């Protein structure tokens, strides 16, 4: 049922920013929204319409410093902006998170495979996100909600470290007010003034009201969390070819040449980051590959 999903199909009607070369194109920073202490969302203003498929990533280049791969986290229906949510980890990501409006960075992409949003028409959709893993899945949510009639139940399960580290909190609250989406949020740690759920996100899965034979799960977050989540989904009855995960590896060239992101026989940049779970199951639990 779910075959490969060629990233090139994502570019219908839009412009890819030099995906087949190593040359970044200059793009101006429009708006910067602080999400939490070390996380910011950048809205970039491309000179030409930019099209991407949910799940894809761009290479963002801070001139004079370096490049980093960041998932596109905006609305795929909006081709007038490129949205990325960045956490300050290393030199490049920290510089990105500190950018000011009207600064110029380099962008090349989009790269990689995408979530099976179109192919999942008629199915229940279970989106399981952990921490910043909600960023690569947010385009899925936008796309599914914009075409809500095409899908069965839509369920979002989101886990964060603490209440203060819930990403996109306003949007989560807005989605929750809809009558046609089930949203459960949980945190790993909280003090007693938090009235929500405390616990790990995989523990939400046994209670999820979904038909496992007609559901598709899309999972993104730290790999440990994804391992536990896949286990819980499989115990819930979902077949391995109905579970999709987004892998993360150190990406340098993004075009399948340098080998830094090799994952078994695949390159995450070229064959991922979104993988159908049955295709990578033999490598998923391997410590060093």
């Amino acid at each position: 049922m779910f075959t490969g999903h060629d990233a090139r199909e994502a570019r219908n009607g839009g412009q890819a920013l030099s995906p087949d070369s190593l040359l970044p194109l200059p793009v101006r920073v429009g708006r910067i929204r602080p999400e939490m202490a070390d996380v910011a969302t950048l809205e970039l203003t491309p000179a030409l319409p930019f099209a991407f498929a949910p799940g894809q990533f761009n290479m963002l280049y801070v001139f004079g410093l370096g490049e980093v791969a960041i998932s596109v986290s905006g609305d795929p229906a909006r081709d007038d902006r490129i949205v990325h949510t960045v956490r300050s980890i290393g030199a490049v990501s920290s510089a990105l998170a500190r950018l000011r409006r009207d600064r110029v960075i380099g962008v090349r992409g989009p790269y990689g495979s995408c979530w099976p949003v179109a192919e999942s028409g008629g199915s229940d959709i279970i989106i399981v996100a952990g921490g910043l893993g909600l960023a690569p899945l947010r385009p899925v949510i936008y796309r599914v909600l914009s075409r809500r009639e095409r899908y069965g139940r839509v369920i979002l399960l989101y886990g964060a470290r603490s209440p203060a580290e819930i990403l996109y909190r306003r949007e989560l609250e807005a989605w929750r007010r809809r009558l046609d989406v089930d949203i459960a949020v949980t945190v790993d740690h909280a003090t007693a003034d938090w009235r929500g759920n405390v616990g790990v996100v995989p523990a939400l899965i046994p209670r999820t009201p979904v038909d496992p034979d007609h559901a598709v799960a899309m999972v993104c977050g730290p790999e440990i969390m994804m391992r536990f989540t896949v286990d819980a989904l499989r115990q819930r009855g979902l077949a391995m070819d109905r579970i999709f995960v987004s892998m993360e590896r150190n990406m340098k060239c993004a075009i399948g040449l340098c080998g830094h992101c090799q994952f078994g026989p695949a390159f995450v940049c070229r064959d991922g980051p979104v993988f159908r779970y049955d295709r990578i199951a033999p490598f998923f639990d391997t410590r060093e590959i």
Partner: protein
Amino acid sequence: MRGLERIVLDQPFFAGLGPEFGGAISGCARNLRFAAGEYLFHESEPANEFYLIRQGSVALELHSPGQQPVVVATLREGDILDGSWLVPPYCWTFDARASELVRVLGVDARCLREKCEADHDLGYELMKRFAGAMGERLRAMRLQVADVYRPRRS
């Protein structure tokens, strides 16, 4: 079949339990309710009962003097509170606070332990279920302790 016996056998936690065991458990059981904010028990108190949540949610907390309690887990309908009644010293290891109106089935621990000693088949059926539930909790706790959402340099 009497009311409590029916309630016991209808609980997912006791799924597959024979009716003879349902009668034994219900003989030690009673219905209880706790208002929002009320504590079911506190850490180090004797675990004289265990609870099966029928409605509502319960926050498991660890207290620290001078600070807000830390919530370590939220338990909901169908969850069991807890395994402390099974092994000595039979004392609770955390606080449990009703997050909202909570209805539970409370089972007298000493009553049920005595029945398990007298009927090892009953004891084994309960042990299987509690071991499974505690194993799931332990697995979840490991994931929490791993603090996987903490920022990490690659």
